[in-house]
């Protein structure tokens, strides 16, 4: 019972955090009009619905199965993964691949109805989470975007949290909060401020040193 309350609290904290993230992103979108902000807001709506579903499922302990192995949990996992991949493709900007996540997910849903292919869902999400983590770190580093780097970490940690839910559901919720904290740091601009080197600023500082040295020599 006590564990259930802690789980409920953890999920509510995650919901509050995600609402805060959406609020910051909405304000950011009003400033820069970048569609990526809207995509991430939608992604967080999917995560929030998933959290609410997890709370309801924990309370009622009802698992609905359609066909062979299509559960609501798996459907949410596919929704989440599709949105993640779509955001990544939007960041990369390659229009040729935009339909890939949707087509793949539709087929996985059909396959789950006709056969138990749970292992493929696990492999798909696992490989994709690692792939997105590495590529988003690379992209974020190249574009000097803390938001993109922390999004990579968020996706990876959220993926890890999903694998926890099957065994120790509380750990999953705590991981989600941890992931949300990291992403909040990213969207608030702290990564750019403390981790990236501002080349112009550095040049200005160095030139000041040289000036000082020259002045001292005089």
């Amino acid at each position: 019972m006590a564990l259930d309350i802690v789980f409920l609290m953890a999920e509510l904290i995650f919901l509050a955090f995600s609402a805060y993230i959406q609020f910051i992103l909405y304000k950011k979108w009003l400033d820069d009009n970048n569609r990526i902000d809207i995509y991430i807001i939608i992604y967080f709506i999917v995560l929030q619905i998933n959290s609410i579903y997890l709370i309801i499922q924990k309370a009622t302990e009802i698992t609905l199965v359609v066909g062979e192995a299509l559960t609501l949990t798996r459907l949410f996992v596919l929704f989440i993964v599709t949105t993640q991949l779509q955001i990544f493709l939007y960041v990369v900007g390659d229009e040729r691949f935009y339909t890939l996540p949707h087509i793949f997910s539709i087929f996985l849903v059909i396959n789950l109805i006709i056969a138990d292919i749970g292992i493929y869902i696990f492999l798909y999400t696992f490989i994709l989470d690692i792939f997105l983590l590495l590529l988003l770190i690379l992209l974020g580093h190249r574009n000097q975007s803390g938001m993109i780097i922390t999004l990579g970490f968020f996706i990876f940690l959220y993926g890890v949290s999903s694998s926890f839910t099957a065994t120790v559901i509380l750990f999953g919720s705590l991981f989600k909060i941890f992931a949300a904290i990291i992403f909040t740091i990213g969207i608030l601009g702290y990564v750019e401020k403390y981790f990236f080197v501002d080349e112009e600023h550095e040049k200005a500082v160095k030139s000041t040193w040289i000036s000082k040295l020259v002045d001292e020599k005089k």
Partner: protein
Amino acid sequence: MTDFRFITQSIGNWTTIIIAPIMTAIVAIRLWNEYKSTNQLNYVRLIIFFIFLAFSWAIIPTNIIEVTVLSEIIPEEAIGNTLDTITPYSVAIGLMVTFALTMIAYANQWKYLYLTPLFVYFCIVFSYIATSFHPLYHSFNQFYILIMAVFGLLFFYITGFRLKDNGSLGLGIFFTIAFASVIAGENVVGDILTFLIAIMGMIIALGYFQPYKQEVEE
């Protein structure tokens, strides 16, 4: 009559067995030469190469088995000659249709749809394997091939006439003959059409099919 049928079948089959790899090789050589001289890949030619490659894959083993003693060594089901089950033959036909749709998307510059047919067909084949060869995918594959072949055929003509594109129009005629030969079945008419497919393929491969003076390729 049976002897006459055997003669027409032999002529039709051996023509395609000989000409299919030649026309594929011609397109490949032209593609490579163009790439070497311009340092750019001609995507229309690349797609035509893949269509011819799939055509060779579909037609050569089936036709060889029909007119040689190999039918006593290799079971016909291992290669297949119909569309109602997923076999190497039907997969090759599926790939032909898929590349045809890719070509239409490319010719019309529908960027979102460039690779979509490839994703869909990959998902059909992957799902068939992942679901331990579920029979639903036999019907799915057949349905996809027939519907998309009609759709592709229509769009080849529309694109060919609208954009005055020799490639689309040529492939439209090529697919019309191929489609007609499938409908005609195993008889003298079917054999004549099989012979004509090879001839038309050779004309396209050699670049002689140019009803419009200026070829629209990029």
